[in-house]
């Protein structure tokens, strides 16, 4: 692995230099140039690398790398099929899909329940949203370190069965604060499930297929983020909030049963990356972000957009109830519109996003999302509001997918 801006220099002399440097440094980055000892080929390489980086940033409109050719795509598809034929990998991917889709379903069902059955205000709905997001924000960066110290199969099965139980509890819950606590616990358990599932992939899939497996897993995750609100919206409108909790609990139980068929995956205690390496990598990452002004601006905009999206999610159920005079079904349709728009936006970016710089997509998508919010605030009819949320979904996907 090479660091951005320090890409390897290819050629016979550089290969010799890379080998020498790898011997000299012998740490996490065997091919990274040492700036402190830079001299001779190293300094030439650093200069050429910086030129190459400058060239890349100098021409943001430079043509993107050509997409994979037909035979390469066919080989990739064949590898996907091979992976999905494996019993263990199939169970892992199915569990991942059920878990992430289930998170969405529980979240949307809760919002419908609080807004329409309990007639909650915006601040109560936003408290539910905070209970949903807070464990992810606080625990996700460190959950992976703990998960590697435990038996992965036990973590996976236990977290699925726990979530099935918690979701069933939600179906019978009739107090707002109890629901907040249940949601907090549900999300805390989810925070441990995701890194355990990713770690299990790296231990169950043969090294040659690992890249494809990770890509497949990541695509499944993105697909759920896009389709999750759509599926959740349809189910909320069809089954009602409490029916969704039963459905969700059943998918978690099924996922737990699938994961119980995995072989034992004992802990990796003592074989994990040392803390010093983690700190160095983290510091390098932060330095890299600080040195790139365009990346800084994009991250700032993305943070603002997601804060705005969080606020909109908290406002939407109350808006639907008070402004549109709607019930859970219309709320479901609004969410389906959001999901369908996101799917359409992602499709659009995937097919046309290569034609222009990603930064234009991020800025343009935010503008579309802003315009959709302005339109939504003027809507008094449910069908027009659904169109606005669809446009909002398109905007969100256009800025979120390239980011």
């Amino acid at each position, binding site marked *: 692995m090479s660091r*951005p801006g320090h890409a390897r220099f290819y050629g016979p002399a550089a290969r010799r230099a890379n080998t020498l440097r790898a011997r000299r440094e012998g740490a996490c980055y065997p091919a990274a140039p040492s700036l402190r000892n830079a001299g001779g080929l190293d300094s030439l390489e650093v200069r050429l690398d910086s030129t190459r980086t400058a060239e890349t940033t100098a021409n943001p409109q430079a043509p993107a790398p050509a997409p994979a050719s037909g035979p390469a795509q066919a080989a990739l598809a064949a590898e996907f099929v091979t992976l999905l034929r494996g019993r263990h990998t199939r169970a892992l991917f199915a569990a991942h899909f059920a878990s992430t889709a289930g998170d969405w379903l529980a979240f949307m069902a809760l919002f419908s329940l609080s807004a329409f059955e309990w007639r909650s205000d915006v601040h*109560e709905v*936003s408290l539910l949203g*905070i209970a949903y997001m807070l464990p992810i924000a606080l625990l996700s*960066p460190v959950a992976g370190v703990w998960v590697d110290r435990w038996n992965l199969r036990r973590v996976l099965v236990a977290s699925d069965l726990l979530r099935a139980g918690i979701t069933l509890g939600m179906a019978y819950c009739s107090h707002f604060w109890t629901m907040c606590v249940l949601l907090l616990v549900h999300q805390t358990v989810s925070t441990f499930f995701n890194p355990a599932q990713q770690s299990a992939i790296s231990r169950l899939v043969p090294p040659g297929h690992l890249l494809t497996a990770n890509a497949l897993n990541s695509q499944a995750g993105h697909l759920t983020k896009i389709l999750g609100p759509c599926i959740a919206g349809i189910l909320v409108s069809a089954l009602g909030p409490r029916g969704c909790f039963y459905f969700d609990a059943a998918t978690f139980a099924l996922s737990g049963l699938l994961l119980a068929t995995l072989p034992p995956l004992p802990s990796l205690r003592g074989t994990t990356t040392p803390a010093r390496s983690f700190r160095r990598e983290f510091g390098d990452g932060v330095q890299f*972000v600080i040195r790139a002004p365009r990346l800084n601006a994009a991250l700032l905009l993305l943070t603002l957009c997601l*804060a705005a*999206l969080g606020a909109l999610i908290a*406002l939407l159920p109350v808006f639907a109830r008070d402004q549109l005079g709607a019930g859970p079904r219309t709320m479901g349709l609004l969410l389906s519109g959001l999901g369908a728009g996101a799917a359409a936006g992602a499709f659009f970016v995937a097919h046309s996003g290569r034609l222009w*710089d990603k930064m234009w997509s991020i800025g343009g998508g935010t503008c579309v999302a802003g315009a959709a919010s302005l339109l939504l605030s003027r809507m008094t009819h449910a069908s027009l509001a659904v169109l606005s949320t669809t446009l909002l979904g398109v905007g969100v996907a256009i800025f979120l997918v390239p980011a």
Partner: protein
Amino acid sequence: MLGRVTSLALAVLSVAQVIGMGIAGAAALQLEPLTLILVIGCVLCASSAVFLVFHAQVRRAHLRRARR
């Protein structure tokens, strides 16, 4: 390193969503949901305009430097 940056970015973005929900909850005590959605729309449009202008300037500067 990319993994660490991604983890950091995801955590920051999740915190941003929590803050956004918190702000919406607090602001809803003073403002109507409709007004809040309108304000959010204005903020998003204004910030995207600022970002696009900034990006265009940076890009123009890069192109000028590359031409020299």
